């Protein structure tokens, strides 16, 4: 087997054609980075036994542009995103799979950077990538690299989290500041060159989740407010549970540079994507306790109780503004586009 020229080489069609070149790419790039006993078996599938309990599975495809951004890259994002989707059920994530669609001509050095970042994210999270797949598409038919990851996890005994469980009177908690990821990506994409210290919040939240469900197993539901931001995710939960929500704008943490960037771009941080935050809904009487657990965890230091679940047959999310007025926090309409004046 020859050595891949990672420093100068590029992805070629032959890397996806099933022959020796593909074996080299998998061996020297993916297997070396992800290195674990399941991959070492060398089979087309990973075989494992799960601990007892209800099994959950989630999948997520990642197509972010740019591929590298302050606070992460498409690789770490693809690991964090799927771990978080699994963890929002209260489950302990156990294994991941990864599928790559590579564009012909993509620099192997960049691919290695992405794969190494995935490996580091997976090791840090303690969730191994145990099986994968690679395909190559012709130049112009992809955007460098697309990554699809799937995760499997197991829900500990006694937990029953679901988006349809929110009840009037429940408290709504948020684990930290919103808008960081979306504003980071947008400012790079549009070449706006904000010098301010804005970086993505991309992180795996399962250890925070584990601490939360251990202390308050009565948590009704959790969800990570990714695309569409806090506003959309709360609307989804309100719809699913058949309830309304009342928020207090003054309680929702938004970091100063993110607020300034949103102000500048005419965006509403409530609709901007996050990749390392969660919303939890729990019975009001357990809210303070849950908040204390979240704040004691490094990923929940800025956690806050941001509102209350209310009875409302229209399932509206409403908010008392910092200004003292009242507004509706509607579903995101289309794409959030900057206004003209």
């Amino acid at each position: 087997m020859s050595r891949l020229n990672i420093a100068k080489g590029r992805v070629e069609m032959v890397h996806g054609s099933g022959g020796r070149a593909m074996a080299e790419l998998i061996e020297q790039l993916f297997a070396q980075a992800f290195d674990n006993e399941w991959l070492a078996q060398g089979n087309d599938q990973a075989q494992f036994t799960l601990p007892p309990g209800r099994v959950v599975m989630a999948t997520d495809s990642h197509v972010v542009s740019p591929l590298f951004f302050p606070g992460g890259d498409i690789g770490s994002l693809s690991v964090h995103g799927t771990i978080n989707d699994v963890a929002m059920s209260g489950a302990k994530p156990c294994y991941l799979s990864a599928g790559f669609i590579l564009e012909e001509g993509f620099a192997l050095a960049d691919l290695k950077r992405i794969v190494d970042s995935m490996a580091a994210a997976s090791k840090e999270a303690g969730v191994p990538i145990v099986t994968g797949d690679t395909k190559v598409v012709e130049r112009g038919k992809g955007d460098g690299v697309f990554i699809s990851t799937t995760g499997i996890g197991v829900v500990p005994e006694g937990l029953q989290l679901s988006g349809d469980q929110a009840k009037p009177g429940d408290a709504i908690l948020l684990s930290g500041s919103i808008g960081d990821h979306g504003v980071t990506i947008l400012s790079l994409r549009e070449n706006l060159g904000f010098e301010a210290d804005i970086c993505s919040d991309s992180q795996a939240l399962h250890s925070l989740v584990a601490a939360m469900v251990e202390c308050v197993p009565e948590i009704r539901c959790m969800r990570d407010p990714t695309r569409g931001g806090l506003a959309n995710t709360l609307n989804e939960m309100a719809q699913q549970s058949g309830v309304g929500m009342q928020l207090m704008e003054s309680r929702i943490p938004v970091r100063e540079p993110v607020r300034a960037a949103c102000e500048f771009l005419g965006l509403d941080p409530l609709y901007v994507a996050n990749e390392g935050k969660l919303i939890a809904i729990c019975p009001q009487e357990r809210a303070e306790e849950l908040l204390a657990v979240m704040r004691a965890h490094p990923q929940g230091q800025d956690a806050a109780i941001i509102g209350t679940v209310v009875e409302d047959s229209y399932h509206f999310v409403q908010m008392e503004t910092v200004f003292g007025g009242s507004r509706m926090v509607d579903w995101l309409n289309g794409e959030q586009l900057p206004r003209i004046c």
Partner: protein
Amino acid sequence: MKYVDEFRDGEKARALAEQIRREADPARRYHLMEFCGGHTHAIFRYGIPGLLPENVRLIHGPGCPVCVLPIGRLDMAIALARRPEVILCTYGDMLRVPGSGRESLMKLRAEGTDVRMLYSPADALKIAQQNPDKEVVFFAIGFETTTPPTALVIDQAAKLGLKNFSVFCNHVLTPAAMHAILNTPEADSGALQLDGFIGPAHVSTVIGSAPYEPFPQQYKRPVVIAGFEPLDVLQAILMLIRQLNDGRCEVENEFIRAVSREGNLKAQAAVSRVLELRSSFEWRGLGAIPESALQIRSEYAEFDAEKRFGVEQLHGRENKACECPSILRGVKNPRDCVLFGDPCTPDNPLGSCMVSSEGACAAYYSYGRFSERRIPAEELRA
């Protein structure tokens, strides 16, 4: 955020709202039009209607650039974008507006047409420099706020000797539209209930306060120019109520931190060097208004996309049931439209007022549905 949070202070807002409640005469109604979409947006985003007494009503004016652009002009832009040699550049809000046949620039882009969203017209110049084998057309829309940047890029393109850059100019003028609102048949018959204007913020930084002086004089309607922050809006409402209560009728300036009587003379000079009055321009909802828009001067004709491509004048097909025209004239409420909410929604806009977050229908869709159903915050806290 410095110089922003000061104008969003909840304590001051409560005090101002209380003052408005004290001073508004319960025996009369106050119909105040915020001309500008920027105000409409702030009014809904900060929940201002909920702070006002029932007899103070805000009417949303036509100052939403995408709302007043007639379908025909959009169809012309779509025709330009379809030319294989053209890269069409415009502002984000414009992309979603449906033209005749429900096509939008966004849909065109999905089909492979080269349409690009800009934050600044200067980016269009860069795109032109990077794509010398393409024709880059900037689809320019907006009121006086966005006009100086358009004039500057045309001037710059001339200085750079760019041969592949042009502008499809649709810039319109605020005072002309205000005159038109006060000259409609509804205004003449008294069907238009309008007691005063909240004057534009950013537009006024460019044109100054002097162009509003005819409104108190000719039409007996007071104008208070206000900033876009929510405290600015509340303060302007209070100032208008005071004028109406006192029987005064004048132009007042709440936005003194940015607006002078004569405006930004440099910007005005830049505009008049490159652009000139059009004899007439079609507005959605208001019809053809004389001297209400700008066109590119003949000295800069090579940068005028209409001339360069010989664009055919199109007159688009409006949905007959769409009430956008009457809503833009302030005589109908979005609720009066049979299309409102079903099938016309912000996700599936049939009319222009449903497209932009500055549009009256989109604002009503988000807020109006809710205000009828709103659970008072006091009740929730109890």
